[in-house]
């Protein structure tokens, strides 16, 4: 079974190619069948591999293709499957399949139905390659592949130029991180002489000792790639704008899978990070800072998708916190549960947007509890999981992260406290969303009820968001053991009660006609803070000032100036040489013979003039 694992990425890839080639000849029905079916089949295959893995959990390596073998170089495409890969694959194909199914209804009125599924399938294939890769080069291929697909899908409705701008922003900002990552890869290659992940980790632990500067540099460069892709501070600004894409795309790429690639990368190279405590600290601090910042911003947004986007950034911040404190399993666990409930929330918001004439503003919704019951229940369950209310999947994973952060020596309790604050804000903003959208007066009437292709994924994800916390992940062989000392009881109790407090605050503030909070928000100070938060801590502006504007100015200055001249000169020189040489092709035979004779004499001259000696 495992020998056929290459089928799993191949299926969506083949379907994508097919859709691109034959898009005009396929009916909508067959497009949907192909697009959804290929991912469904991949999910079934993944399930089979996972079942086999449960009985025999030795990691497998599958070499598909050695490109060439010249001298010592032998680039090859090979996959490596262990528990971590398998968890990621299950998330990608499972959640991916549900989102594909949802899309088949969500996008049914769109003109470019086939193009949409072609991109989406290609994304699944690239993401699978990313997690299956056994060397960093192949991983980088998948990494860039998902970046391209994200670009294409964010700008899917390309007729609106704002969408194109958002797509470019997403691509360029992540590229900044990718460049750092590429430098990191090259550094590892030159220093350690290999890119195969396992060999690399082994060689690194042998060659470097804890606290050396080289592993720190390499880790920070890899981290650069990770924070770009996973939208962490300060490269997170692209994610809220990326909500310009279709909502299922946001669910798949910008919530469940692609944005967690950074988490995966760090988890995959954890041996390297263990060599550098300072890099680990950086990861933890970036994580907790991003988490708080984004949560604060989510509190005041009014666009339903932007709220979810900031909440995604915040939740990935928790995963980074987990990685930073060495709670690898907890981080990956939260990755999985977050994929379930965030996909659920995005799909729920997609259903609302679908039924409400593409309305994004939450203040124009309201009272949807009775009108869209399925959506309401799924949103409620998703929000509960996001707020980490007890007995939901999010509770288990977030609790694990916070407790392990607490056990961290030195500043562990501080991280724990900050994390709790974040959890409180998370609970407030998620239930603010629920109360405003689903309770109160109806402001916009839905024009339809969702069909089974939308309802089924929502139901399944609801179930997963509840029972997902009871899954035990096969990660014991992948990560080193963490000390399992139990924290004091009061820590646990506080951890459990804080989200409940948040829900309660949200209830006070936002349930009903909002009388209690309105008077408070009118004060100028709160207004200004709200404005500041709403703009995403003005980071876009800052970047605009320090990076984009100067770059534009520089580009303007260089537009027709010195550097181009140099290249133009090369072009002109070559063209001039071409002209003069062409003149020698006169077609006259005696000239040809003259040239031959001159050549002969020159050859003779070189061969005879310099005093020769046998080598």
């Amino acid at each position, binding site marked *: 079974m495992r020998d056929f694992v290459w089928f799993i990425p191949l299926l969506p890839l083949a379907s994508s190619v097919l859709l691109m080639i034959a898009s005009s000849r396929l009916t909508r029905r067959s497009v949907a069948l192909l697009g959804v079916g290929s991912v469904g089949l991949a999910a079934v295959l993944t399930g089979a591999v996972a079942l086999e893995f449960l009985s025999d959990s030795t990691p497998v390596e599958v070499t598909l*293709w*050695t*490109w*060439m*073998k*010249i*001298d010592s170089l032998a680039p090859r495409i090979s996959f490596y499957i262990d528990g971590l890969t398998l968890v990621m694959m299950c998330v990608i194909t499972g959640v991916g399949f549900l989102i594909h199914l949802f899309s088949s209804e969500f996008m049914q009125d769109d003109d470019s139905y086939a193009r949409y599924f072609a991109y989406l399938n290609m994304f699944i294939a690239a993401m699978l390659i990313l997690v299956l890769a056994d060397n960093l080069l192949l991983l980088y291929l998948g990494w860039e592949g998902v970046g391209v697909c994200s670009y294409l899908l964010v700008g899917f409705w390309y007729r609106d130029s704002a969408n194109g701008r958002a797509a470019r922003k997403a691509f360029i900002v992540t590229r900044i991180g990718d460049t750092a990552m590429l430098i990191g890869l090259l550094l590892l290659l030159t220093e350690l002489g290999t890119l195969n992940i396992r060999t690399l980790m082994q060689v690194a632990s042998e060659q470097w000792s804890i606290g050396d500067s080289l592993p720190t540099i390499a880790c920070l460069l890899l981290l650069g790639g990770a924070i770009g892709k996973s939208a962490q501070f300060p490269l997170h600004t692209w994610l809220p704008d990326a909500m310009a894409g279709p909502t299922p795309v946001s669910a798949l790429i910008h919530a469940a899978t692609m944005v967690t690639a950074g988490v995966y990368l760090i988890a995959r190279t954890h041996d390297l990070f263990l060599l550098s405590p300072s890099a680990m600290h950086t990861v933890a601090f970036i994580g907790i800072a991003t988490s708080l910042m984004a949560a604060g911003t989510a509190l005041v947004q009014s666009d339903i998708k932007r709220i979810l986007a900031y909440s995604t950034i915040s939740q990935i911040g928790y995963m980074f916190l987990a990685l930073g404190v060495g709670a690898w399993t907890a981080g990956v666990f939260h990755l999985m549960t977050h994929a379930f409930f965030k996909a659920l929330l995005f799909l729920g918001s997609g259903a609302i947007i679908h039924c409400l004439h593409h309305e994004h503003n939450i203040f124009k919704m309201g009272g949807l509890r009775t009108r869209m019951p399925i959506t309401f229940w799924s949103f409620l369950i998703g929000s509960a999981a996001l707020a980490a209310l007890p007995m939901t999947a999010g509770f288990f994973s977030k609790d694990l992260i916070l407790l392990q952060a607490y056990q961290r020596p030195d500043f562990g309790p501080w991280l724990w406290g900050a994390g709790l604050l974040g959890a409180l804000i998370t609970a407030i903003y998620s239930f603010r969303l629920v109360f405003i959208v689903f309770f109160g007066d109806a402001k916009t009437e839905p024009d339809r009820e969702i069909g089974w292709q939308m309802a089924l994924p929502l139901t399944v994800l609801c179930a997963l968001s509840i029972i997902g916390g009871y899954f035990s992940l096969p990660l014991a062989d992948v990560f080193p053991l963490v000390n399992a000392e139990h924290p004091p009881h009061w820590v646990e109790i506080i951890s459990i009660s804080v989200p409940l407090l948040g829900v309660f605050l949200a209830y006070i503030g936002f349930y009903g006609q909002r009388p209690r909070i309105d008077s408070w928000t009118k004060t100028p100070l709160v207004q200004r803070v709200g404005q500041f938060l709403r703009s995403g801590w003005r980071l876009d502006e800052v970047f605009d000032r320090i990076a984009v504007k100067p770059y534009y100015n520089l580009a303007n200055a260089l537009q027709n100036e010195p550097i181009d001249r140099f290249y133009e000169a090369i072009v002109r020189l*070559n*063209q001039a*040489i*071409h002209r003069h*040489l*062409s003149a*020698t*092709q006169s*077609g006259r*035979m005696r*000239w*040809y*013979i003259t*040239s*031959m004779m*001159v*050549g*002969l004499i*020159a*050859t*003779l001259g*070189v*061969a*005879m*003039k*310099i*005093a*020769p*000696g*046998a*080598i």
Partner: protein
Amino acid sequence: MNSDQLLVLSPIISLSLTALILMIQASIKRDHRIAWWISTLGLLTTLLSIYSASNFSQDVGPLLKVDAWGLWFSALLIFCALITLALSRDIFHTQADTKEEYYLLLILSTLGAVVLVQAAHTASLLLGMELMGIALYAMIAFPKSGDLPLEAAVKYLVLSACASAMLLFGFALLYGATGDLSFAGMGAKAASGYLNNPLLVLAGAAIVLAGMGFKLSLVPFHMWTPDVYQGAPTAVTTFLATLSKGAMFVAMVRLILDGQLYRYESLMNALSVVAVASMLVGNWLALRQQQIKRLIAYSSTAHFGYLLVAIIALPHLGDTQQLGRAAISFYLVAYIVTTLAALTVIANVGGEEDSDMQAFDGLFWRHPAQAITLAVAMLSFAGIPLTAGFMGKFYLITLTLNAQLWLLLGTLMIGSAIAIYYYLRVIFTMSAEPHQLNKGSPTVLGWRNPVALLLMLAVLAIGSWPQPLIDLIGRL
């Protein structure tokens, strides 16, 4: 002569018999179709005989050296001849009244090429070269209409005669210095001859290499190439570009290796000058060329310049000589297959003589299969990854790096950079809007599509899954 020797000579015997049968057929009953089938069967039989001979390897008399390397290239040359046959099938259907002789000439020329790649002696080298050449002159001038083929044939004839004279004179000087005419004998005795009279050895070798440089159209012996490529019928151009040049290059490698010419530093310096000039001038000349056959001609000059780099690198390699031979073989195979693919499309689309770039615009929309094949061939020429040309160039660059020949490496890079411009130009032309004149596009005969596609697949296969070929070449 024992039976083993007869077996290893069987490719040559088979080709000769095919030629005789064709002559008899022409004198009994002329028929274009029958002549075509006889030639095809003859070439296929020869391929079979090469396969059966490949288990043996030995010298046959003083003249020929049949080894796995030579047999492999013989098979490749026969393959080129088969493709040429496939392209020729309907070219002369309407034109000449004595078209059967064309196949006779083709077989004779192939025979000459096979002798050339197995030559171990100056006599057999000359014999093979002249047999190949003389048949080729007639093939170039075969269409009776138009002045271009005739002009091309006369130019090639006169200039070839000049080059042959150079070759002969060079051999005479070498004979004077060493008293031997076989490659190995010359190599063994050249060292003492060199002590007596270094100039004689060097001058002889330099003149010989110059004469061979003409056939390979290296700068400054390249002037004939575009005129002949353009003037000849495209099928014959294919034949000339792949079979004739490939055979000559193999002979040159043999002469330099067996004759131990690589030991003379100044000689290698002279070759370096020729290589640098070829890489630069060839690419520069092709830069804005509008005739696609002329473009291929100039690019062939550059490509043989690249190949020459591999020869120059050989003495610097020390214990990795095997890599050098592998690089030469691989690049040659890649180049030949790519050229076959490109010229097949040109023959299919561009018609016989007219090969102006304009005939190719919008080809992607008119004949997608042909256009993709040509695009793949151009990418392979340019050395873009996943094509055969990339692997070849990768080999060459690895080799040059190992040999630490920085000047040649730099020139190779610059040449490749220039080359990308005109290769991509062809692809851009094909993707442009079809020109008004090309709206009513010529039809490509049904069975020619598979030939082009087969060659395209070969180019892609060698580039993306090269390991079998690398292993095969490593064993030679």
